[in-house]
């Protein structure tokens, strides 16, 4: 029996969709492919239309958005400093 390990499978581990459109795209894309070895007995009608998606096109099954980071920088941003004369700050 072939076991599918959801937690460690590279396709399923931490796979995240951008939104519901992704799920629709998956279903439509699968339906438009050539017939599988075991047809699904017509339970899933073939899509005859294209679903308009984001301009950039859908991502292939994404593992995580963080895998699409092209540059990551940790840095100090704005700094405000107060320069004071300790001897003049208080009366005594």
């Amino acid at each position, binding site marked *: *029996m*072939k*076991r*599918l*390990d*959801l*937690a*460690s*499978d590279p*396709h*399923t*581990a*931490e*796979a*995240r*969709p*951008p*939104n519901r459109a*992704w*799920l629709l795209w*998956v279903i439509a*894309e*699968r339906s438009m492919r050539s017939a599988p070895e*075991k047809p*699904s*007995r017509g*339970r*899933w009608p073939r899509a005859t239309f294209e679903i308009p998606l*984001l*301009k*950039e096109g859908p*991502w292939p*099954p994404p593992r*995580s*958005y*963080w895998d*699409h*980071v*092209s*540059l*990551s*920088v*940790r*840095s*100090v*941003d*704005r*700094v*405000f*400093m*107060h*320069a*004071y*004369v*300790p*001897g*003049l*700050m208080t*009366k005594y």
Partner: protein
Amino acid sequence: MHRGYPIPSPAALGKIGKGFVKDIERFVADNAIPVVRFAKGQCKEDVAAPYLAEARTRGFHGVVLVGVAQEKESAWRGWRDGGSDGHPHFEFARQSVFPNFYYFYINDSQFGSCFIKVCSYAPFSMWVYCNGHEWAKAQAEQEGLGYTALDNGFASCEDPAPLQRICDRFGAVSMRNLFERWSHRLPSPFTAADRTAGFFHQLAFRQIEFSDTRVFDRPGSGRAWFEQTIREHLDLGRPDQVALIFARRITSRTPGRFRTRVITRGVDPSIQIYLKSAKQKQYFKEAQALRTELSINDTRDFGIGRLVTTENFQALKAVAEAANAALIDLEHAGETCAPDADTLQRIVLPSVEHGQAAPGLRFGDPSVMALLASLVCASPTWLGDSPTPACAPSCRATSAARTHPARWATTSAGWFARA
């Protein structure tokens, strides 16, 4: 007393202040620096921006603009309180006044654009503004490291590792050097004798921001993810969540107002979380990069001193980087789990396993979803693995919902094989 005044009188403070203003006017005239008087409500950065841009274009390093603005300040004022004309008694106290502040906008060779603000009244405080990203840009240019700017940050870099090393070099020494470099060039109310007598400036952190910027290669999709993340994390400002992010114990006596703010400027949303006077902010910068930044307004909130020293800076940096990483990890763990196309098809379509037909499972059907959640919860027992933290929210199926589908799935041969 070291200036030769017989008694400490308000007249002495007035003389020092007027002399300081004359020194500034002389400095401006000698160096032919443009002077602008800021109007009330005017954005000073916008006024100074063209002067700084022009200085950068021609490679000029120095003071490019002096701005004058009346602002509120707690300054020393003195008045006569008894005594005779021959031997008057003076009283001094700090009161709210509206003196002139002088903004020296500088294009520094190390820091790029920065400014120093000085008050013409005692106690002659100064404020220094600089930006760590601008400093890193100047260092990258000096080392010949190619980059593309993203506002005050980076959009891309030909070699990110050296860029991160440059950013890591920024510290208290850099900031102190900036102040020392310019406090000796600009007019000062203090003479060398004053400094010898102990009247010199000390630097303290007033506000410091630590940022974590992640540039996405598909910014449109990244932004869609960020907007979805905001919707899912509206509870980030609650005390229990804040305690997780800042790794600090929050009690009913912890000061400050705990809240999450989602602010939309134009079409760009940002999420803000508060702890005491510190603020953590996350937004999509220039529609290209996710920026997470912690703004610390009082270092005492984290039990760290205010003076600009290496120890204090490193302690603040450790707190901020841990908080920024914790927020990102929290969002990372909270992302919705979903299978890929192959797995989804294998689960939802009917199949035959070992000669036994297994029915299709409609994804989205409440009983199917409850069954999936139950299986994920029980996966350590069956599959020898532990559910990822990301699965945890989906595991809250009620016991009633679990019972029947689980029994049904047990009797439906092949389902477990697929799952």
